[in-house]
């Protein structure tokens, strides 16, 4: 027992182990949500295409030192007026059993289109920000995150 703890903390040190085995699997879920990335994206856009855009700034770490707490910050350049604003910021991930993380429905009263939170990543994967604009268009930005220790380490 003690010994396993020891290895958990340091025995499987870099040079020794060839792979890091995630200690749990979202896929083994019984009652958990299972929503694929594609289904999630379609549900948000209604099948419309989402354009990549320079006005979407998605910030995630390149390497997450702990998959259980991965900071995600999304800012969209937008005047946030009644005529032109960001209606929603969606966070999706590509490999968790459930691709959906959060939908933020904004209004011009926010003044600035930004959402920051922290997600659990069950292994290395992509994080996407899908943006719904008030004119009905969708924008998207995606970035990979390398997770060194699995989601619930």
């Amino acid at each position, binding site marked *: 027992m*003690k010994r396993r*703890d*020891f290895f*958990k*903390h*340091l*025995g*499987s*040190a*870099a*040079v*020794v182990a*060839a*792979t*890091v085995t995630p200690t749990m699997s979202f896929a083994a879920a019984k009652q958990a949500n299972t929503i694929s990335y594609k289904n999630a994206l379609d549900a948000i856009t209604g099948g419309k295409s989402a354009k990549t855009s320079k006005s979407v700034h998605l*910030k*995630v*770490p*390149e*390497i997450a*030192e*702990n998959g*259980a*707490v991965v*900071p995600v*910050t999304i800012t969209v350049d937008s005047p946030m007026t009644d005529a032109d604003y960001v209606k929603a910021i969606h966070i999706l991930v590509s490999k968790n059993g459930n691709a959906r993380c959060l939908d933020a429905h904004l209004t011009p009263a926010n003044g600035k289109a930004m959402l*920051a939170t*922290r997600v659990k990543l069950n292994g290395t994967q992509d994080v996407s920000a899908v943006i719904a604009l008030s004119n009905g268009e969708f924008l998207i930005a995606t970035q990979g995150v390398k997770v*060194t*220790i699995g989601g619930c*380490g």
Partner: protein
Amino acid sequence: MKPGIKIVLSLALLSSLSFGGESFAMSDADRAMYTEMLENNPADILVESGNELLEELVGGDAALAAFYKVTEDDLAKYIAGFPRYIEDFKQVVTISQSLQGLMHKHGHKPFKLKSAKMFELSSYVKSIANGENINIDINANKHIKKSYAMGENNYMTPRGGRGLACNSCHSDAVIGTVLRTQPLPDLSSKGVAVAATWPAYRMTKSSLRTLPRRFQGCMKNALLKVIPLGSEEMVALEVYLTHQAKGSEIAIPGLKR
């Protein structure tokens, strides 16, 4: 088995930032993101709750200052000097132990040192000193001098099944090398300033932890005998490491992996 493990460990200590040929060093941008997370630390909730606890128990900061026999203006500086020898206790005490005394004096049953409520209360009290520099004085009297010496000795002396000391993993010689993707932290550098950044929220535990609790974590993982919270030895270790961080600015709650 034991010798094998020792070899594994020393290899691990020597290996620098690589993992199966891949680099796992964090970029500066990534570090900045994690630093930014400090702005919204879940433990802020618990520090705030500690503030409410202090108000409920004794009425707030004024009663605490009175208990420490300092003015409210001097409270932050005073707190930045813990652990310290207090005559009423006849020993060197940590903030948490002093708060047990405070609770007792006000007719409450003191929270246990390892209780969540004590973590909240003591974190709040230490946060009163946020922005102050650690000003522990290990030459103030013979009691704290002795405690420091004991702490240094505990820190340096190999113990336990693997013959490791705290210093085996936290000395100048090995800091920065990586143990299972974790760089070994330099506990005395101004950058880490361990004593100035604990109590902290540990993301891997999703909870607020104190410095002695963190020590216990290392003791368990490295198979050193786990020293009980509040014991003379444990207080001495805290005195030693707090002195290493002397002059560092206190920023509570910290945020750790």
